[in-house]
């Protein structure tokens, strides 16, 4: 049970080459932006195709280059909360959430919808458009939309990065609460050390397209494997300095994301 990811992907001078496996737990992909974390999520979701490797969740195989399997994103049963949330601006809160209920049996849809509205405290704003609600409310709508069809995996791409500090802390508590209700592998991408420390069951540390350390949250936080990881963990939570690699050159920043495959 869980999520297994072993992928290689070259994107414009950047090479992602990672391998990790998690159970039904919250794993934090941690590292500076540009280290390939978001790209990994897009590979898991099927929005970008890996050059080679294997991606599987529970008993389903999503991608397996050895057996020529490459399931479309529509077939993967993945809840994805995007960094900018990607709520549909032309739909109300209700329509946004129900849009996520594709494949849910008709007689169950209403019940699940109310379950989501209650779980995410969305009563009273159901007929509003995303432009009419607050940042925290948008966040919760995005979670509800991603979870209503009970996906196999939940992917969170820096979902709190646009929020100010009090709301971030509130949303962290909210996500912890969520962990108890939904048993599935959750992958959270962040470069905020505080977020990693407070939320993670396990931490996978990325640097320049590779995994440089993985382990339980306690292991990684207490025993950073080297100076790079230590620096990441004590680094200012929200700033994102341009780190320097071993040869002393500034790391290429733009290459790593590989977003927006045409």
């Amino acid at each position, binding site marked *: 049970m869980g999520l297994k990811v072993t992928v290689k992907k070259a994107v414009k001078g950047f090479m992602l080459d990672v391998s990790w496996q998690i159970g039904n737990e919250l794993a934090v992909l941690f590292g500076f932006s540009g280290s390939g974390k978001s790209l990994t999520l897009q590979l898991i*979701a*099927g*929005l970008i195709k890996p050059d080679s490797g294997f991606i599987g969740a529970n008993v389903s195989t999503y991608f397996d280059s050895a057996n020529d399997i490459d399931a*479309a*994103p*529509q077939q*993967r049963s*993945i*809840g*994805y909360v*995007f960094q*900018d949330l*990607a709520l*549909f*601006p*032309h739909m109300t809160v209700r329509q946004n959430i129900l*849009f*996520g209920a*594709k*494949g849910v049996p008709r007689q169950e849809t209403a019940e699940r919808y109310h379950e989501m509205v209650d779980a995410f405290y969305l009563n009273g704003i159901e007929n509003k458009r995303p*432009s009419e609600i607050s940042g925290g409310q948008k966040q919760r709508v995005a979670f509800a*939309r*991603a979870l209503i*069809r009970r996906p196999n995996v939940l992917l969170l791409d820096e979902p709190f990065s646009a929020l100010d500090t009090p709301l971030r802390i509130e949303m962290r508590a909210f996500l912890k609460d969520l962990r108890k209700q939904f048993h599935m592998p959750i992958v959270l991408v962040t470069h905020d050390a505080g977020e990693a420390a407070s939320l993670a069951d396990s931490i996978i540390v990325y640097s320049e397209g590779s995994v440089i350390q993985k382990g339980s949250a306690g292991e990684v936080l207490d025993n950073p494997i080297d100076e790079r990881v230590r620096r990441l963990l004590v680094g200012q939570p929200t700033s994102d300095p341009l780190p320097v690699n071993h040869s002393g050159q500034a790391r290429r920043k733009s290459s790593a994301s590989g977003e*927006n495959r*045409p």
Partner: protein
Amino acid sequence: MMDSTTLFSIRLSLQVAAVSTFFVVFIGVPIAYLLARKSFPGKEAIDIVMTLPLVLPPTVTGYYLIIVFGRNGLIGRYLYEWTGWGIMFTWYAAALASFVVALPLMIKAGRAALESVDRNLINASYTLGYSELETALKVTLPLAKRGLLAGGVLSFARALGEFGATLMLAGNIPGKTETMPLAIYSLAGSGDWGAASSVVGILTLMAAIFLYLANRYSKRIF
């Protein structure tokens, strides 16, 4: 002031513009979608060919249309052989000319509107289980709605004002293929300035209304 042929030309113009705009939207929107969202070899070449009528003199566009659809044309020849019917000098020819000349406006406006739809919204729809067609119908096209409407309105206005290509392909037959712009040409040529001014006034007013609508639609609501 206006005789029956002039009234006929007003009705014919609206009919020609309506029919050609219907096909412009029906064919132009899918082409705009492909150009905006897909990459395939020859994509920019297709864009250029589709856009040429926007910059070519309409007589040149009309000339090409004769080569293709004339009685001895590439397609017109077979049409005539099989059905005994030719499109030239019928109101269908006027509609075809308006269609070809107005299509680039729909494609240009549509492509820009569709390209501006946030890629993440489309990806979100895919991860929620919606196929590309479902996503296009429920997310991409609704979000590009204003730009598409503006393109449709501009196309209608352009179709209404089409002169050169229509003259080449449909001729100027009063009571048959004489649209408003052609009627103005005939009336002015025969010295009937009163009637000409009326038609000019009507056409100007219509064009202004359509431009107003196009501007209104292209303003964003979100």
